[in-house]
């Protein structure tokens, strides 16, 4: 699996450079995956649990959770871990996720996407959420 890096992809111009942080590519990929109907959430169970804690204390971002990228000067490779809603066609949802990630990264960041590797690691069943505990004090 590709490693997350903090390196940047520079683009030299006549009057200065433009750099786009790898975390931006990561976030765009995460937003693109979320946009596809049938995707419930991103990340494995450990990463979702850890993400819930870090988001509660103000760190981390749900949009880039479960996404890792490898970014070069002109190209990017993306790995995404998904939870898909039960009843959806997994191959179709994966195809749509792959297409949307390629479209968004190429359109927004201007990088060519060489590969999008998807891992479906869980299914979401409606009603899976644990109901909130009733308040003891009104």
């Amino acid at each position, binding site marked *: 699996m590709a490693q997350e890096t903090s390196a940047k992809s520079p683009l030299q111009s006549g009057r200065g450079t433009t*750099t*786009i*942080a790898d975390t931006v590519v990561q976030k765009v990929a995460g937003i693109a995956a979320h946009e596809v109907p049938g995707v419930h959430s991103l990340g494995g169970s450990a990463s979702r649990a850890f993400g819930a804690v870090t988001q509660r204390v103000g760190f981390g971002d749900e949009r880039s959770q479960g996404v890792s990228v490898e970014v070069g000067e002109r190209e990017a490779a993306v790995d995404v871990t998904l939870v898909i809603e039960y009843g959806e066609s997994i191959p179709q949802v994966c195809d749509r996720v792959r297409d949307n990630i390629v479209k968004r990264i190429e359109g*927004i*960041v201007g990088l060519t996407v060489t590969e999008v590797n998807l891992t479906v690691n869980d299914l979401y069943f409606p009603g899976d959420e644990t109901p909130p505990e009733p308040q003891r004090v009104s």
Partner: protein
Amino acid sequence: MGVRASRSGGGDAASAVGRPPASLRRQLEELAREVAAATPGVGSAACTAVAVPGGRFGVALRLAAELVPLRPLADEVRSRIVTAAVSAGLAEALGPVDIAIDDIVAPDEGDA
């Protein structure tokens, strides 16, 4: 009147409150930040200007951008800064404009 105010010569707003006028570096920094923040597609902007060889000041901008094509956005910001510097008579002092896009502001992020 204080020593600083009398040294600065008076007449402008800065000397009226006892501060020396902003340096060329500070003026460029302010101009670049304001122009970047006003560019459509930019969520927020931070800026520093630093002296570079040749008597100019290089501007380094860090942006949080909206979901728009990022490289054309950076080119647009750079071009607006150059145009604004020319209008403000600071073109001679403006060096390279380096732009780093550090974050994306997602459409639902401002709602919280």
